[in-house]
């Protein structure tokens, strides 16, 4: 928040002022038998698949060459439609100029002839014929790891499988390609060994990294698949949040920023073969043995966070601890769910805290505009990672706030969020605490996120005048005066039946 100075604001202002950027998530409609025009060639492609977390994180670096005679600017990336909805935080950058920010990306509807859905990458400048560009494509795929065996004993190790194609799915011809798999540990129980794709051992193993390829695939038609399955130990929970609702409430009068997050968690790991045994759990807890169950959730908060609470549907969860930090270092909330969350078990809860508004809000000099910078998503920080199937961020601005614009802050690296047109933004009004008009509420909805999006910053600029600020005190005053007057009038009515 300290970096949030006027200069940053100055940079942001023009782009924000340009348009009220409230958008609905849209998908382009393509013709039924659409095929991406073969205007590009992938001369070299390297896919890095990271399996260290409980979701799959992929980065594809690809050198793209324009083989057409015209300059081209639309690059298509296909995904099967069942995978497409689970792709989160899709982002494409020019690998040579990552600071220039992400490229614009559109999503498309399903193309029924191929069963694919596409991301359409728009280059900022059309790529001239024969010239090349290096793209860095990064995304994560949720719910793509399946536990095998799907039921285990309570103290057993847990294994996950991941299936993919040795040939990276692409709409274009690829000359050479390889895939690097990064496992969380050395215990890889099973993996496919290819025999006819290249000479020599495939994959090559080096520590926790397995490399498939490189393959010469100039003659392989785009879309050809070569299935590969790996199975590796992952004795950690596969934490999935069906839904995260995050409310951030701004109070100008109270000088307070209140945050509340509601989680619906589920552990997608292997289920228990027998039922839960407390005896075994007590002993394994004593030995601090790794487990596929969620024991504790650590939840870093920003420095200066106060009044944290951790509750669920039936009240306070007494097994939590708050370490406030010393003002400069961040605070830490250690949450212990009521029971260990084993595979297939659910747990829903609520956490909330307050912050001093001054650190997040600035009034833009000489105007009634305010700029608010808050984290888009906070969430627990777990070594095994968390995947969010759906995130709804609700920003409750003061009553009467208008002309609301928002921007997600971009850095040199991916912030884990998809591009703005994949985020559904709506404005509504929310009545609470004796509001007359209701508070302006900005709701942002995103599907398929991972905890990579932690600490992505959201900047909201809105106008709020003195009249807006005084509306509530005046309303309450008027209400009280009316009440007293009404009581006085009623008290003076004589309804007795005695003679006047």
């Amino acid at each position, binding site marked *: 928040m300290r970096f949030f100075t006027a200069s940053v604001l100055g940079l942001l202002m023009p782009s924000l002022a340009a348009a009220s950027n409230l958008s609905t998530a849209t998908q382009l409609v393509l013709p039924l038998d659409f095929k991406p025009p073969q205007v590009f060639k992938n001369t070299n492609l390297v896919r890095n698949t990271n399996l260290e977390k409980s979701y799959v994180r992929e980065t594809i670096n690809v050198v793209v060459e324009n083989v057409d005679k015209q300059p081209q600017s639309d690059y298509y990336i296909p995904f099967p439609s069942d995978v497409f909805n689970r792709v989160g935080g899709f982002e494409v950058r020019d690998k040579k100029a990552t600071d220039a920010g992400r490229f614009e990306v559109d999503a498309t509807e399903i193309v029924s002839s191929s069963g694919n859905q596409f991301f359409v990458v728009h280059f900022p400048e059309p790529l001239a014929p024969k010239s090349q560009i290096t793209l860095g494509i990064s995304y994560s795929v949720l719910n793509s790891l399946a536990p095998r065996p799907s039921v285990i004993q309570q103290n057993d190790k847990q294994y996950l499988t991941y299936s993919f194609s040795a040939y990276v799915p692409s709409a274009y011809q690829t000359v050479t390609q390889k895939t690097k798999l990064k496992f969380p540990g050395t215990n890889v129980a099973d993996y496919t060994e290819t025999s006819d794709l290249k000479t020599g051992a495939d994959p090559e193993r080096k520590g926790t990294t397995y490399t498939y390829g490189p393959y010469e695939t100039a003659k392989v038609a785009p879309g050809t698949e070569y299935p590969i399955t790996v199975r590796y130990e992952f004795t950690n929970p596969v934490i999935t949040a069906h839904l995260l609702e995050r409310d951030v409430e701004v109070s100008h009068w109270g000088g307070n920023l209140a945050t509340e997050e509601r989680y619906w968690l589920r552990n997608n790991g292997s289920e228990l073969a027998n039922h839960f045994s407390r005896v075994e759990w007590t002993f394994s807890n004593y030995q601090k043995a790794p487990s596929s169950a969620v024991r504790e959730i650590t939840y870093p908060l920003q420095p200066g966070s106060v009044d944290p609470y951790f509750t669920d549907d039936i009240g*306070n969860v007494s097994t939590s601890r708050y370490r406030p930090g010393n003002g400069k270092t961040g605070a830490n909330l250690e949450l212990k769910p009521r*029971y260990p969350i084993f595979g297939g078990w659910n747990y829903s809860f609520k956490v909330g805290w307050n912050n001093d508004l001054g650190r997040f809000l600035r009034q833009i000099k000489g105007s009634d505009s305010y700029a608010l910078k808050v984290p888009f998503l906070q969430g627990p920080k777990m070594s095994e990672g968390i995947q969010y199937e759906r995130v709804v961020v609700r920003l409750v601005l003061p009553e009467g706030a208008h002309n609301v614009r928002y921007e997600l802050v971009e850095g040199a690296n991916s912030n884990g969020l998809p591009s703005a047109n994949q985020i559904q933004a709506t404005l509504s009004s929310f009545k609470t605490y004796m509001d007359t008009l209701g508070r302006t509420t900005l709701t942002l909805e995103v599907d398929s996120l991972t905890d990579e999006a932690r600490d992505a910053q959201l900047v909201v600029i809105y106008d709020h005048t003195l009249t807006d600020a005084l509306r509530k005190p005046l309303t309450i005053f008027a209400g009280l005066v009316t009440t007293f007057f009404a009581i006085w009038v009623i008290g003076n009515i004589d309804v007795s039946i005695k003679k006047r």
Partner: protein
Amino acid sequence: MAESSIDVLLKGSSGRTTRGLLRIIILLTIAAAAVASRLFSVIRFESIIHEFDPWFNFRATKYLVENGFYSFWDWFDDRTWHPLGRVTGGTLYPGLMVTSGVIYHILRFLTIPVDIRNICVLLAPAFSGLTALAMYLLTCEMSSSPSAGLLAAAFMGITPGYISRSVAGSYDNEAIAIFLLVFTFFLWIKAVKNGSIMWGALTALFYGYMVSAWGGYVFITNLIPLHVFVLICMGRYSTRVYISYTTWYALGTLGSMQIPFVGFLPIRNSDHMSALGVFGLIQLVAFAEFIRGYLPGKQFQKLLTSMVLLVFGLGFGGLVLLSISGVIAPWSGRFYSLWDTGYAKIHIPIIASVSEHQPTAWPAFFFDLNFLIWLFPAGVFICFQKLKDEHVFVIIYAVLSSYFAGVMVRLMLTLTPIVCVAAALALSAILDNFLVLSKPDPEAVAKASAEDSKSFRSSRSPIVGIYSYFSKTVVTCSMSLYLLMFVAHCTWVTSNAYSSPSVVLASKMPDGSQFIIDDYREAYYWLRQNTPDNAKIMSWWDYGYQIGGMADRPTLVDNNTWNNTHIATVGKAMSSREEVSYPILRQHDVDYVLVVFGGLLGYSGDDLNKFLWMVRIAEGIWPDEISERDYFTARGEYRVDEEATPTMKNSLMYKMSYYNYNSLFPAGQAVDRVRGVKLPAESPQLNTLEEAFTSENWIIRIYKVKDLDNLGRDHSNAVAFDKGLKRKRATKKKGPRVLRTE
């Protein structure tokens, strides 16, 4: 009201205004103190609903708020008493839920976002503040002393006898009922004093509210007629009494019949007959009074005697006839147990099994009322001295409720208000005499004595009183001391005895910090999150409401206890062998069985300690299958260790409690810390159930009922088969060494 009493003491209107203002401030402070002293549990734990019944009320309130009043009224709840269900809307007192619902909707209208749970938690403290105010009004009707009302309000605000049922989170009917009780009595006294239809109608209105809120309304239904009856017997019949009683009875009975649960009880149930009888009597008395004005004395006497005989004969005969024919319901069991404390234990074990239905122990009176209990008789005595209509009321109330409080612990609650009134009367009399510093003017004394000497001896009124500063100081100081001790005692009792939610248990860590044992909620939340929405949970009825409220799962029996047979079925399943229990569990679609086990922690309120009640209740229905004697050893001991009887060891409850418990301990050293015994080295074997969840401190154990065996074997065979394989392998290892000859 109170102003009239201040007039005597004060001259000048400004002084009166000041005192009036002071009085309001004092009353508000008392109300605030009443609320504040009930917040211990919220501060120490959290804003949580306590104990058992409040969880049902909370759940019903949520239903009301979510589904609206009409569907609440028609609510058939298929998630309790599976598979029977319960006509909840028609079998509850809706006053409490409707009150919170109305508060909720008012706050919603003002767009103040208060959670319904917080309204429910804080309803009882809020109403106890109102009770203190109502108590002030009631006592001011009894005494002209300026201090009596305020003292009574303060007593009512903090006396533990009332706090026990109204701490924050204790969201039960009593939370609002005591306020309604006191306020109805205030209105009744007002009505009798003024002979006003308006006050009578207001009494009826609040009586109706009371009926909608608590089954204890019967107390009012009988007390007011009794008051009138005594007044008539004392020859104090007046039009005031006639007007107020008839107004109250007619309107109040109609009002009470609007509640579905009460329905036609007011005209059919014996509990309500005294009100009807007195209503008839007062008509006759009024008629007689009317006739008396027109007839000469002798004829009137004859007429009266014959009429009394005739009416009595007719009335009594009619009552007997109606009772026999069943038009008037016989007295309810709870009513009988009021007169015979042993009745319930023999005939209705389910009533006797509730701890709050036990007779009161003597120390409880002092514990709950402290020094009020010895001021109480003094206050009643003062009432005898004045003996106006309202004092008669106090006396009757005092006598009746003293008896009831001695019979049942929970009826201490109805005793408390009258103790506060009487004690305040006594204490204010003391203070009024001893706190006044002024001595009579010597001249006035001389003058008075001079006047006295002229008049008749009998009409003399010599100025007497206590004028010694010493005795004044001693009495005042000691009284102040008692008051201070009272406050200290109340705070201590509230803090230590009545502020535990009992859902959450607190204990101390070695370093003195608080450690919270949250097993109940751990297990309930596990059920709520990880079992199918319609998984049926069987547990002893104590936990039914909590499971409904916290785990949100259907239960077989709950604290409503309307169907004794169903409860006995659960009792039978718990106390029988697995072979007997399993068919019962299957027949009732039970998916999970929940037991409470305190052995690890030393938590004494567990199911094994309640087990004998289960046996007794089951025995009441199946005397030839379950026998209490079988659970005692030959020497008549209730044992759970090695020496326990086979019936005990084979009972489902015993097995579920101790299953696998010994594996926590070194071999052969498993100890039950509640009953303080060493357990058998072998864990009991369960064939038809499997352990599904055990909470952190083992307080709650949940078992899943196994489905039928896939191969059609019975469960014991299937388990033996599985075990047999393992045992074979085990014996192989340990078998005698054989020389390998390969």
